[in-house]
Structures are given as C-alpha cells and as structure tokens.
C-alpha cells in the first residue's frame, strides 16, 4: 500500500545505535531510511535481516520488522522469509566478515538462487565488532594483533563473485554519499531477483585511514551493463572505488508458488489407505 506521507524519519526506531562516532554504518542507516521513504513502503511491510557484527546491528535501528540472527546466516534467514512471505520487501544487511567469510557459502547460493531480495554489505575491510582482525576483503599487508605480518592473502572481489554466481543486480555505493546510496538501494529493491549492493563503509576505529575514501571514490563511474561479459571485464579492471551500478540482469527470480493449496493433508492420507 502506498502512503505518501512517510518521511525517512518514519523508518528509524528510537533505539540508539552502539556504533562509534563517525562509523560509516550511520550513513547506511540514513540511506536505507531515505530509500524506504522513496519507495513509500509501509514499515510493517519491510523486513531487515542481519547476522552479527557492528553493521549487523542495523535492523533494530529501523522501524521495520527486523531479525538479528547469528553470525553469517542472514541470507538464509532472509531467503526463508522471502520465499514464505513473497508479499514482504526483504533487505538483508551485514558486514564483509559476516557475508564473505563465515557466510560465504550462503552468498554464493543467494546469488545463484536469485530470490527477490536486496543484500547490503557494509564493507570496511575489517572485523569491527571483534576489534580489528582481517576479513576476506582486507589488504594482504594490513597488520593487526592477530596477524602481525598481515595475512599475505589477496582480497576477494565480491562483485566479481556475485556476477559469476548469478546475482541479478550488482552495485557499489559509498556511505559518505547517502543520496547516491539511497538511489542505489531504491534501484536494488525495485530490480527483480537478488540485488547485491556493496557499500564502502569506513571503520573509523580500526581502519581510520578509510576516512580518506571520501576523496578516493568516483561517483557514477560504473555504468549498468546488461551483459555479464562486459560487466566482468569492468569489474576485474576496477580498483574498488568506482561507484554505481555494475550489472542489471534479466534472470528470472526464484519464487516458488506458496499458498496455492489444491489439497488438504487429509486428502494426502488416502494414498496410504489400503
């Protein structure tokens, strides 16, 4: 149902965020609220689902329905919810550790399954909540208490993985650009199937150098491709700072019919009766 009187403020709850001052995730919350207002969705028709991490705290800060589950399983919760309740708008949120490390398998299969939901990953290239360990998107030479020499491992390219695994919409936003990010979220929600939005969201506490991202990002640098080969070429040449929509595909979403009963369970008993 469309209600034109809803403003971004309607989509925020009275719960005070636990985030550090300056954390990038504030901007994502603002952009999400703006996007939901633009989409004019009633808060009760939206569900925001997450796992564990600083970024995964976001559901309780919205006025929508929320589910804050365990580490890494947000996409599974969101998938079950959307398949069971296709009438809801489902937004899954979380961090790079939650989504690409412990939840990596679900990321692959959510892209491939292409359920009509939006996945927003607040990528700060670090485990914030556990106080600064490297994640799958952390640079190889970034040192920490746990990995004093750095991991020595190359970063993964989540957008390339999403493309290869079959995501239907792939975009990158920046938390320092809430309007641009809100627009990306609107497009992601409106696009049928699995929409993946990578958000550069600095961890000012454990990666203070990420404050520089605002000078490094390039707005509207990515143009939407409908051709995955073209999108792949672009994403492999990308330095991670180009914003915009990389890919908008036309794959049919996974939406098995639910609620169309032709029989009752008692009818099914007959096949066992002698």
């Amino acid at each position, binding site marked *: 149902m469309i209600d034109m009187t809803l403003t971004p403020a309607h989509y925020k709850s009275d719960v005070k965020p636990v985030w550090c001052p300056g954390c990038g995730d504030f901007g994502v919350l603002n952009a999400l609220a703006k996007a939901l207002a633009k989409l004019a969705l009633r808060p009760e028709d939206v569900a925001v689902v997450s796992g564990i991490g600083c970024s995964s705290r976001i559901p309780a800060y919205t*006025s929508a329905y929320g589910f*804050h*589950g*365990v580490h890494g399983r947000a996409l599974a919760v969101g998938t*079950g919810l959307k398949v069971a309740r296709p009438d*809801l708008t489902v937004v899954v949120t979380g961090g790079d550790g939650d989504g690409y490390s412990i939840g990596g398998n679900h990321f692959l*299969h959510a892209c491939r399954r292409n359920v009509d939901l939006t996945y927003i990953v607040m990528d700060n290239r670090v485990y914030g909540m556990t106080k600064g360990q490297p994640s799958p998107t952390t640079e190889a030479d970034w040192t920490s208490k746990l990995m004093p020499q750095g991991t020595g491992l190359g970063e993964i390219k989540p957008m390339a993985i999403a493309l290869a695994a079959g995501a239907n919409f792939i975009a990158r936003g920046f938390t320092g650009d809430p309007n641009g990010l809100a627009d990306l979220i609107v497009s992601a929600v409106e696009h049928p199937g699995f929409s993946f939005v990578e958000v550069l969201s600095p961890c000012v506490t454990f990666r203070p150098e990420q404050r520089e991202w605002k000078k490094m990002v390039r707005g509207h640098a990515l143009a939407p491709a409908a051709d995955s080969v073209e999108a792949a070429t672009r994403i492999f040449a990308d330095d991670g700072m180009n914003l915009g929509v990389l890919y908008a595909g036309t794959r049919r979403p996974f939406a098995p019919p639910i609620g169309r*009963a032709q029989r009752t369970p008692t009818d099914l*008993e007959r096949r066992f009766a002698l």
Partner: protein
Amino acid sequence: MTNPSNSAATSVAIALAGSGGAGIMTAGNMLLEAAASAGYYALMTRSSGPQIRGGEAAAMLRIATHPVECMPAGFDLLAAVDWENVHRFGAEIPLGAGGLVLGDEAEGAPPAVFTASGAAIAALPLAAIARGIPGGRPNMVLLGLVGALLGLPEDAMHEAVSRTLGKRPAALEPSLAALAAGRSAAGSLQPFTPLAPPPGSAAGRWLITGNEAAGLGALQGGVRFVAAYPITPATEMLEWLSPSLESVGGVLVQAEDELASINMAIGASYGGVPSLTATSGPGLALMLESLGLAVASETPIVVVDIMRVGPSTGIPTKSEQGDLDIALHGLHGDAPHLVLAPNGVGDALATTQWAVTLAESLQCPAIVLSDQFLGQARAVIDRPAAGASPAARDVAAAAAEGDAPYRRYALTDSGISPMAIPGTAGVTYTADGLEHGERGTPSSQFTDHAAQLDKRLRKLADHDYGERWADLEGEGDLAVITFGSCTGPLREALALAYERGLAVRLVSLRLLAPAQPARLAAALAGVRKALVLEQNHSGQLLRHLKSSFDLPVPLASLRKPGGQQFNAAEILRHVVEWSAA
C-alpha cells in the same frame, strides 16, 4: 512360523535377496503389498551393499496376523535369486533352526552363514523357468514361489504386481506369467508352514513408512515451509514432502547446507509460516548454534533428526539412538527446548504433528528424534488416531498510534508473549539472538538476562503436556524404560514375558525434554527396579534419567550400539535374567 508342528503360522519372517539389478526391492514391495491387501499386518526393512547403486540387496519382511514393529530373532525363509555377495547379509538375516533357504539350483550351494543353523536347503531352476517366458525375470518367479509357500491368495499377488507394473504393459504380462510359473513350481518343494488366515480385511489400515508418516504429521500440524539439505536416511522424508507440500500450498527449498536449512526455516517461521527441517546426525550437529537462535529469538521451528550411526559419517544406512545427547544438551547457554521421539512407524505421524503444535504454541524449537529403522521401515498399521489439534501460535494484533509500545518479549505469567507477524501494523520489532529486554532491544544487563531466561524456561516448564508424554503399558513391580524404535521389540518381549508369568511395565518416553520427573515417578509407583533400554554405546538415556529425573528406583541398563536392531527374544532373555538378579 514359530512352531513348525502347527498347521499355520501367526508370524513369518522372510528375506528376499540377490545381486543389484535383480529386482529384489520391487519383489519385496510387491510381497508386502500383497500381504497387506490380503488382510495381514506386515513390516519391511531393507538393506543393501556398500555400493552407491547396483549392489546386492535384501528385502526383509515380517508378515503376521497381529501388528508387528520389529524383526524376529530368526528368519523362517531366505529366498535368493542368486548368491553373489548375498553372504554379506549373514548377520542381518539369521536363519531360525526350522528355517528354509531357497535358491537357484544353477547357483550352487547357499553360503554357509545361512545354513550353519541347520536350516533346510531347497533349490529350483529359477532362472531357467524365467528364461522359458519371453521377458520373464527370476525375481517374479521367486515372488510367485514365496507367495505360494506362505499361502498368500493368488489374486492378492496378482493385484500387487499389476498395481506396480500396470503402467508398463510390456513388463506386466511376462511378470504375471513368471509369477504364475513360480507359484506352480512351489508344489515340488517340501511343505512349508503357511500363514494362518488373516485377521480381517485390510480396510481401515495404512501402508506407510516412518519417514512418510513424519512428513504427513508435519503437514497435519500446519507446516507449510521446509528447507533441507539431502542426507541419508532423511532424504525420503524430504522427497515425500516436496510434492506433498506443494499440493497443500506450501514449499520446500533445497538449501546449500544445514546451516542454511535451519536458518531458512527460522526466517519463514518468523514470517508466520510454520516451518520444519529434516536431517540426520551430521546435519543436526551443524544446526546447534541456530537452534539456540530459535530459543533466544523465540521462533518456533521443528527439526526432525532421522538418526543414523555416528559419530561423524558413521554408518549412514544403519540405525542408532546416538543423537539423544546433542539433542538434549548440544545447545550452548541455558536453552530450554523440546525433544520428542516417535516410538513406532505410525507414531511418527502423531509425534511430528505434536512437535509442530508444541513448537508453535510454546514459540521454541522442537527436535524430533526418529531413526533410520523407523524412517525407512514400511509397515501395515492401523489407521493412526487423530493427532494433536493443529498449530496455534499466539499472534499479536495490530496496534494504533498512541498504544503502548509493543513488547515482543513481554514477561507474561505463562512466559508466552504474543508474536507479531511481519505485515502487522504498529507492532514492528526486531527479533534477536542477542539477549534483550521485553521490547527486544539488545541488553547486557544481568536483570534482563535472568528475567528472559526465566520466561523461556517457564513457558516450557509450566505447560501441561497431557497424556502424550509417554506410553505406559502393563503392570507389575518391574519396569523397562525406553524411547523410540526400541519400543517395538520391547513391547513384544514384554508380551512374551507376561505369557511366561513375568509382569513388567513398559514406559516409552515420547517427550524427552523438558523432562517430566514427577510424571515418570508416578508412573513408576510400586516399581522396585527399572531397566533402561536404548540403542547406543554409552547409555545416553540412562544418563538423562539419572541427571534430570532423580527417580525413586534403581536403574539398570540394557544397551547396544547401532547397526543391528534389538529383537524381542534378545530383550526377553535380558529381562528374565535381570528380573531374577
């Protein structure tokens, strides 16, 4: 065929065996269906070699004039189309002393494992007879022969074959001819004690597997969403549920792993749709963290564990009651939840249905511990009694502006707090696995933690579980306490004990958690000592009874690991010894 001097048997155990591709399972199912439609009770289990496909196979049947829930200590008839690798079933198909081993004369002598007991040996030219019928196969000749030996009516045999092959006329005609040829060949064999007349007609009875019964119970309970990852021996339950769910307006999602399946089920249930996942031990182990999430977020879900031999990959195709420990105690933190166990093929329906009802009304996870034996056994059962009334979740109504804020985790007297379903206005909230206050807002306060722990415990502890918590049978000052698939052979053993003048009570626990110590103590009033029967190596049920029940009677233990079911004779022997000790 317990007494060969009798002119008719009230129970006969038959094994059909042969190499892969010989059609043993098909013949076994036809024999089962023929016996069922002729008015007998019957049970069929199966076994196959280690090969993924095409290995040797055995169909083990017991046909009787009374309901049967287990295989006997000895088989009366082993009929094989060939002996290739069939010796591997030696331990699973023990022949009784008065038994008969029947094979193809072209195959030579039967393996010694089968004849060592002194069983009689007979041979017929099965393959040669089959070759005489264009398109005829030895398994159908064997089926005709066995049907005749048992005295099953010709039309019931005919009908069973026709029902299976009716859609393939090219296979039907030669099969019926082979069946008839087998039947006439039976005349040349020494007399075999046939079955006593059937106990009435088949009408009103069902032919069903435990996995199908559990699936049907889930649907009867209101489940409309299932997510699962394939695993033996739970797969058949899922394969039955997939089209069945669709026909009743539900959906099954094949998940990428068990971490996903349980979380998908949690997500769907959060959305208001009663949800379930089914798995076996390895999958249950993966689900434990998220079971805790369902406890903390108070999201109803049902996890059906068709137990197999563990630990690790164990023996995927064999039954064991080894997951009781993790089902009861595997969750971290203090996490009250439900653990139930069906104690028969038919009871898998009612118990799974009850699990859904309880999970929905108590807003918590329920684990149903079935096992490979109950799940894959196919049995003739009396039509199951109606189950618990369908799921009823306490749902929050919409609220208007100005109403007091919605408290999802309100500290009610019962511990049950109305759950808002997404889409309902004015009562949005965030469900949380983080400890929380009444509104769901995360809290690290001791007081909130203690209050929510109390709430979650109270709703389970104070619930009235009624009469279904256990099956209580018999009287006397001795009792055997068991659960799940040990119940069938125990029931039979105690009936035999009673015939010998030894009265022992049967207690089969259906509700394993929360423990019901007061009810069990009452059920054991007047009992001097109790024996705990279970199928695992370490005595998991015994430990549970010792730690959570504080029973007024001394407990002894009768247990063995999975891989071989208990039979009634074996239990009887132990019960007699124990009663005298």
